[in-house]
């Protein structure tokens, strides 16, 4: 494995007409990680994923996959990248056997044994027409085709959004097995946070066409705290830039803050933050009104 991050973007942007769908996106995704790309609809998740796999041309900045540009050197990049699109589109009139044969002919690094053993374990008959499979089975077949390429990077756009809870669990089981077995790097987009906490180790929050937060989930959770205390002046709190979310009642103020150092002020009760709460706070912040003015929070007393 090279020293390059598997995915690297610098100032990446995409404009449709006069509107920027994604702007100034700089990311590094390390080898072997499972990264969740989270954001509301319209945040630029699909736009970003399509630029990673060379489907869409950047309007600004650059993408490097395994150290190379997917649009300038597609023959070197694309065989090493697997993609599972939203709603798992497949050739519905093909039988499963025909679909796997197409996979073999289209992909130079095709692993027929891996693909066949996966569908056998899933218990899907090879003679079955793909269009007649359940949603969960179609998702598994789409994953099998992507894994059959033996990719170094697997990109999945909302892979579990359309699946029922059981199919979702089975899909993620298969995906995690592949990560454990093949040393695969995975980037997946989603707006379901709860499952991601178990599956992902890195997080990128996209909102309003830009990156709000990115990094290892452990570090991100470690760098945020929930503070509860007696009511403080909301005007003063709103000027502090390390406050991600503030809520006030008549008596109480609750703050979700980014705190690089331990908080020593005894007038706050300090609690850890869960991933879902943290993600929601960042998304709310973006959906909210004025950008916070830059200020400083005196937390250490």
């Amino acid at each position, binding site marked *: 494995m090279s020293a390059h991050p598997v995915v690297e973007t610098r100032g990446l942007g995409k404009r449709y007409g006069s509107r920027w769908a994604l702007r100034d996106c700089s990311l590094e995704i390390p080898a*072997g990680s*499972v990264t969740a790309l989270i954001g509301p609809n319209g945040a630029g998740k699909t736009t970003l994923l399509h630029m990673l796999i060379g489907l869409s041309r950047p309007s600004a900045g650059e993408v490097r996959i395994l150290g190379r540009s997917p649009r300038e050197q597609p023959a070197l990049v694309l065989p090493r990248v697997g993609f599972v699109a939203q709603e798992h589109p497949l050739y519905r009139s093909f039988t499963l056997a025909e679909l796997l044969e197409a996979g073999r002919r289209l992909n130079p690094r095709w692993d027929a044994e891996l693909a066949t053993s996966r569908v056998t374990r899933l218990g899907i008959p090879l003679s079955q027409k793909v269009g007649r499979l359940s949603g969960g089975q179609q998702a598994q077949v789409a994953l099998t085709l992507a894994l059959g390429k033996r990719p170094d990077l697997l990109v999945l756009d909302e892979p579990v959004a359309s699946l029922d809870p059981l199919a979702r*669990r089975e899909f*993620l*089981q*298969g*995906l*995690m*097995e592949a*990560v*454990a*077995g093949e040393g695969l790097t995975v980037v997946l987009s989603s707006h379901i946070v*709860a*499952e991601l906490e*178990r*599956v*992902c*180790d890195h997080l990128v929050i996209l909102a309003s066409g830009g990156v709000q937060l990115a990094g290892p989930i452990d570090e991100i959770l470690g760098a945020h705290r929930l503070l509860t205390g007696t009511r403080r002046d909301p005007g003063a709190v709103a000027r502090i830039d390390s406050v991600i979310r503030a809520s006030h009642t008549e008596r109480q103020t609750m703050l979700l803050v980014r705190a690089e150092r331990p908080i020593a002020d005894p007038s706050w009760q300090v609690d*850890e933050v869960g991933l879902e709460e943290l993600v929601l706070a960042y998304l709310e912040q973006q959906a909210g009104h004025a950008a916070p003015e830059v200020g400083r929070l005196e937390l250490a007393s």
Partner: protein
Amino acid sequence: MVSGMIEFRLSARSGVPTYLQLVQQVRQAVRLGMLQPGDQLPTVKTVVGSLAINPNTVLKAYRELDREGLVEARPGQGTFVSRALPPTPPGDYARLQSALLDWIRRARDAGLDEDDVAALVAATLQAVAAREAA
């Protein structure tokens, strides 16, 4: 049928980090004799295939157990239990239970109902786990 000696389970509501739940379950299985020195822990692939969790979480748990000296990783083979843990003697169980009974009575007298007690126990366990993890 899951191969290997034990099967992990996860509780999303316990508030205990996933890797720590795995660590605790191995310790418990060793303490109860379900796992004995020389036994192999489930492979990372088996665990992630059944729990749908990130492989690094399993690796982190196994590293922690290795650090404690309870298991050892043999390159290319897997992770094996390297020593036994003394089981909690039955006398301790009885003593602990009677102390707990006293405590629950005091909590009732103080006006705590069942939910209050459960919440307090959960919060305390969580605080302990957080301290251990730190």
